[in-house]
């Protein structure tokens, strides 16, 4: 079976999106969650860029490329925000993961 | 010529994968960082050869960017603060 490069990379992109999603949902460590989001994002960008690929000789479609560039920059902004919050949380609670909201559970009784 | 280059690309990628074993295995942080430094250089080499194979001069610019940025990352690693004596020993075991 022969795969076009764009199909191969699109499938790879879906694969890393799923890996990121899986790790995001099962690991509580905040830094790991942020890493997982970045990796899942890379998967999405790979899918986008493989949609733009038109074969070896042709120029690729520039619009998805512009979208990926924008997406990467937005992702950096989100990562910075998340890291700042994670830092504050770990210095307030001494933990690297999220605790359950206390007031809800406690006062529900 | 082109066939030779294509094969050498594959070989370079295989050396890169082999270098990743050292990153994964460690055992010390220093090992990981050094191995990733080598990975960066291998990646730069791959990009240079790719620029020939794909006749894409822009790949050289990409290589330049990676070369420059890998230095910053390496320095960031080397200058990260120590946690405590006991911790850093564990760090280096």
């Amino acid at each position, binding site marked *: 079976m022969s795969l076009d490069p764009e199909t191969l990379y699109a499938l790879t992109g879906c694969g890393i999106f799923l890996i990121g999603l899986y790790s995001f949902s*099962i690991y509580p460590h905040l*830094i790991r969650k942020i890493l997982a989001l970045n990796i899942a994002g890379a998967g999405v960008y790979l899918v986008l860029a493989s949609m733009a690929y038109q074969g070896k000789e042709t120029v*690729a479609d520039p619009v998805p490329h512009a979208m990926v560039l924008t997406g990467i920059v937005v992702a*950096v902004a989100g990562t910075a925000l998340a890291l700042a919050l994670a830092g504050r949380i770990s210095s307030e609670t001494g933990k690297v993961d999220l605790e359950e909201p206390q007031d809800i559970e406690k006062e529900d009784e | 010529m082109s066939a030779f280059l294509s094969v050498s690309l594959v070989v370079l990628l295989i050396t890169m994968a082999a270098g990743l074993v050292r990153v994964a295995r460690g055992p010390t942080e220093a090992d990981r960082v050094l191995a990733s430094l080598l990975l960066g250089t291998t990646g730069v080499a791959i990009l240079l050869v790719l620029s020939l194979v794909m006749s894409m001069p822009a790949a050289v610019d990409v290589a330049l960017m990676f070369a420059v940025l890998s230095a910053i990352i390496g320095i960031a690693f080397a200058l990260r603060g120590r946690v405590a004596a006991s911790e850093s020993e564990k760090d280096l075991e």
Partner: protein
Amino acid sequence: MIDLAAKAFDALLAGLILWLAWSSLSTQDILKGIVLFIAFGLCMGLAWVRLNAPDIALVEAAVASGITGAMLLGAWNKMRLSLAKMRGDETKLPEPGRPWLHISGLMAMGGALGWAIFSIPPENTGGLLVPAMRELPRSGVGNPVTAALLNYRAYDTLLEIGVLLLAVVGVWSIAKSRKPAQGVPRGPILYGFARISAPLLILIGGYFLWLGTSRAGGAFQAGALMAAVGVLLVLTYGPTRRVPAEWIDRWGSIFGLTVFLTLGIGFMLQGRAMLEYSAGSAGAWILVIESAATVSIGWTLLLLFLGGRPQAASQKGILVEEDEVEGQA
């Protein structure tokens, strides 16, 4: 032979990317995960080149793996320092509960995604390539990606620069800046390196900015390099030198958005649509916007790397953090 080697290269690269994604997330040691993430970025860079996307490869190298990697490293290090003060625990990698539930869900989703990729009708895959190339002469630049970023879809880029500024405001509202570790000796070799490479990096950044009008490159690549210069200087001289006053940071980070927005409005007041360049002068305006954006993007990314509002800068002018635990030299 060539074709086979190309296929082998692609398959190997795809495998490496998948393996790196998996192993950087599933290792016990966060620091190792970050190293693997940076290696992941490198492999992604190769994949972008394979997909004829050198613009993305440049930004990947500079932003996605470079600045993000440095940010992750700095943030995790600070977290570790403060955790060491409190309890010194590293969380164990937990055993996922009900793994089969997760895995079967992911398999189903993967199946659907794969099926969707194969079911994309081939007749539409040209996308917007044809109109983008047709309008290229009118766009004022030679690189179609720059044309898409700063002309066809300039509004996206305007908002994106807004998001970067928003991130600075948000990060400042949340945290105080990190200080580079002081206990680690610098030494003459590092100082020498910084002295040589800082001007060199600025030069290369200018080159990328100029390159963007005709080939891969542009404001983001150049801005990221400027940020890299900043990161290098902060890491090297951070503990000893004065930092600029806070208002400089503010003005530096709003500059790009302000110029971009002002021009957008200006075109509107001249009777055109928002962000519609006058005929023939698009190239010049794009260069103006890109230059302003480069300054701001560089400044913003550096501020994001520092991870918080400048501390006590108004009083002492030096990055000081009282609550930081000092490591041993």
